[in-house]
C-alpha cells in the first residue's frame, strides 16, 4: 500500500482499500495476550455461548487496530496518526475478512492534516466498525 501523496490528495477522494487476511482464532489468542484483554468471549467458545453469543467474537479493539494499521500505512513515515475514533456497530467472527475503506473528508493546508472517514466491513456498505482518523503530516523544511 503506497503512502498518500499530500500534493495530489483531494477532499472526497476514496483511497485504495486495505483487505486484511481472514481473522483466525490464533490471532484472537495472540491479541488477547498482546493487549491484556483476557475476556474469554474472545477465545473460549463455551464462555461465549454461555453469554448468548453464537460463538467467539473478535475483540472490537482488534478491528480498531485494523483501521489503525490502514491509517498508519497511509501516513507512512510522513507523520503520525494524530487522532483515531471508532464506533463498534457489528460483531466480527473468526474467518471474517475485513476490508478497510477510507474517504478524504478534509485537508487542512495550514495544520497539514488530512481527515479520513473510515470503515471496516465484511460485506460491501455494511460497516461493522466505522470512524474517523486525522493524519498529522510533518511540515516540509
Amino acid at each position, binding site marked *: 500500500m503506497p503512502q498518500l501523496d499530500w500534493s495530489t490528495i483531494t477532499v472526497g477522494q476514496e483511497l485504495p482499500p486495505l483487505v*486484511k*487476511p481472514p481473522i483466525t482464532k490464533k*490471532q484472537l489468542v*495472540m*491479541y488477547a*495476550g*498482546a*493487549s*491484556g*484483554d483476557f*475476556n474469554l468471549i474472545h477465545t473460549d467458545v463455551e464462555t461465549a455461548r454461555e*453469554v448468548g453469543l453464537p460463538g467467539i467474537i473478535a475483540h*472490537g*479493539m*482488534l478491528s*480498531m*487496530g*485494523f483501521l*489503525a*494499521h490502514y*491509517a*498508519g*500505512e497511509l501516513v507512512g*513515515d510522513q507523520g*503520525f*496518526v*494524530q*487522532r*483515531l*475514533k*471508532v*464506533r*463498534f456497530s457489528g460483531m466480527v467472527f473468526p474467518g471474517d475478512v475485513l476490508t478497510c475503506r477510507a474517504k478524504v473528508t478534509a485537508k487542512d493546508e495550514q495544520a497539514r492534516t488530512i481527515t479520513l472517514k473510515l470503515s471496516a466491513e465484511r460485506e460491501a456498505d455494511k460497516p461493522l466498525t466505522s470512524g474517523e482518523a486525522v493524519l498529522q503530516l510533518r511540515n516540509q523544511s
Partner: protein
Amino acid sequence: MATQLDESVVGMTSSPQEFEVERGAIRRFAEAVGDPNPLYHDEAHARACGYAGLLAPPTFPTTFRVALPIEIDAARILHGEQEYAYTRPIVAGDVIRCATTIRSVRQREGSLGKMTIVVIETTGTDRAGQPVFTGTSTIIVH
C-alpha cells in the same frame, strides 16, 4: 457489589499508574494485529524517521490496563466507541503515567432493556509531565 452507576460518579478519577513501553510489547502487539509497519518493528527505520525508538501503534494504549475509579461488572459491558488523540506518538522507552476519569453517565432505554452509557477518559503523560495521549471510551453497561 458494583458501585451505583449514576451521575454521582461523574468526575471521579483513578489513582495514576505508570506503564513502561517495551519494544517487545510493541512488536507483539503489531504482530497480533497483523500490522507490518516498519516503524513498529524496525528500530533503525524508526530512528531514521527521527524517533527515539520503535513507535507504538495508535491503539497501543489499550495495553495500559488502567484501573477505573469505580467498579463495573466486566460481564455487563459492551464497548460502544473508542477514541485516541495524540500530541505525539508513543515510543519504546516511554514511561506513561495514566489515570482514568468518569466523564459522563447517562441512562437510556434500549433494545437490551435499561442501559447505562458511561464515558471514560484516560490521560497519559510522559516523564517530563507532558501530555501524550487522551483515550475516550464509551461503554454500555446493561
